[in-house]
């Protein structure tokens, strides 16, 4: 419950502050969001599995975002930025899908 409130507070903060993203960071933003979503769904699933751990969540969130951004950056430098970000999105998408499937099994027993 508190977690959802915190999430909403973040959304409100983002809308209210309306920061401008530096042009250099713009390509990494979508990938960072997908990576963050992966960490969140992992956390939700762990919560339902009753093995949620705050430290693990924080570390996985930050490392996911950073690693995803780093991969895209590396890809940009190597000239395969588009393909690498596709790869990152595919991998993260598969993970999200798997986690959501586990969550679904928890919630609906199906």
């Amino acid at each position: 419950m508190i977690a959802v409130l915190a999430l909403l507070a973040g959304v409100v903060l983002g809308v209210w502050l309306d920061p401008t993203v530096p042009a250099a960071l713009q390509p990494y933003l979508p990938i960072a969001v997908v990576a963050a979503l992966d960490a969140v769904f992992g956390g939700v699933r762990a919560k339902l599995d009753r093995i949620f751990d705050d430290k693990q969540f924080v570390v996985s969130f930050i490392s996911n975002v950073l690693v995803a951004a780093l991969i895209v950056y590396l890809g940009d430098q190597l000239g395969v930025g588009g393909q690498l970000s596709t790869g990152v999105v595919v991998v993260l998408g598969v993970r999200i899908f798997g986690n959501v499937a586990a969550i679904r099994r928890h919630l609906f027993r199906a």
Partner: protein
Amino acid sequence: MSAERGDGGRPARVYAPDFLTELFRNPLEPGYVAAAERKRRNPPPAWRTRSARSVSLVVLVLLGFLLAVAYRQTMEEEPGRSQARSGLVEQIKERERQTDELSARADQLREEVGRQRDAALSGSTAARLRDLEAGTGMGRVRGDGLVVRLADAPGDADAVTGTGAGPPQVLYTDLQGVANALWSAGAEAVAINGQRLTATSTIRSAGKAILVDFRPVTGPYEVAAIGPGSMKRRFEQSRIAALMREVADKTGLSFGVREADDLTLPAAPEPRLRYAEPPGSPSPSPSGDRSASPGPSGSGTSPSPSGGGR
């Protein structure tokens, strides 16, 4: 997966040969399991749990922030893109308008020059010049002649397939053929959609558009020609006319030839000067009756013969 874990033990490790299967099978961070194990063995102090909890709340706030920012960013980029596009369209329109204005002004000035020249020249020379201008397309002409009308077939497939095959269309080669046939049928002046053709005119295609002298023309195309009365008969006998009739029958293009009285064909745009020689000496020419234009016949070296008053 939860069933595997339910009996307390770690899920049986499967050495899957391929990475993707593994990815699908085990999307959970193994770290959670390890952390739970650790916690069960020796529970951490309360302050540590609390601080970790607050940190994860901060991370959640951060995540919400990230989501909102990313959403706004994506939304903002979209109008930017379409704005840039409409800005470009605007610019193109503006430039086209300027071009039209300038060419209208050029026409006006050219007429003015023609009038002044007629006033300065003697009658017969002026008449000769006007004849030459009419023949080369540099001057406006009026007379009776033919209008050949070509139009694309009415489009019905276009709406379904978008830019697919589309209805049969008039090709630039059709216009070329018609123009050439008209010339060979004795036309003295030809214009396509009001664009006068000269000896150096081009009819070509660029993508889907047809360009006459680098200006786009759109269907229906009207090729107007001024010429003798026998022109219609001779044009109808030409190969391109027969070909176009057949094409029209088969594909639904429209192709029509009609005689028209009192056509007015505009002058072609001023040709770019391609070749000129400076006059031999800058000494003043004897009188004002010499036109100053160094024509291709070359009034450069010899002082008077071709251009001089006769």
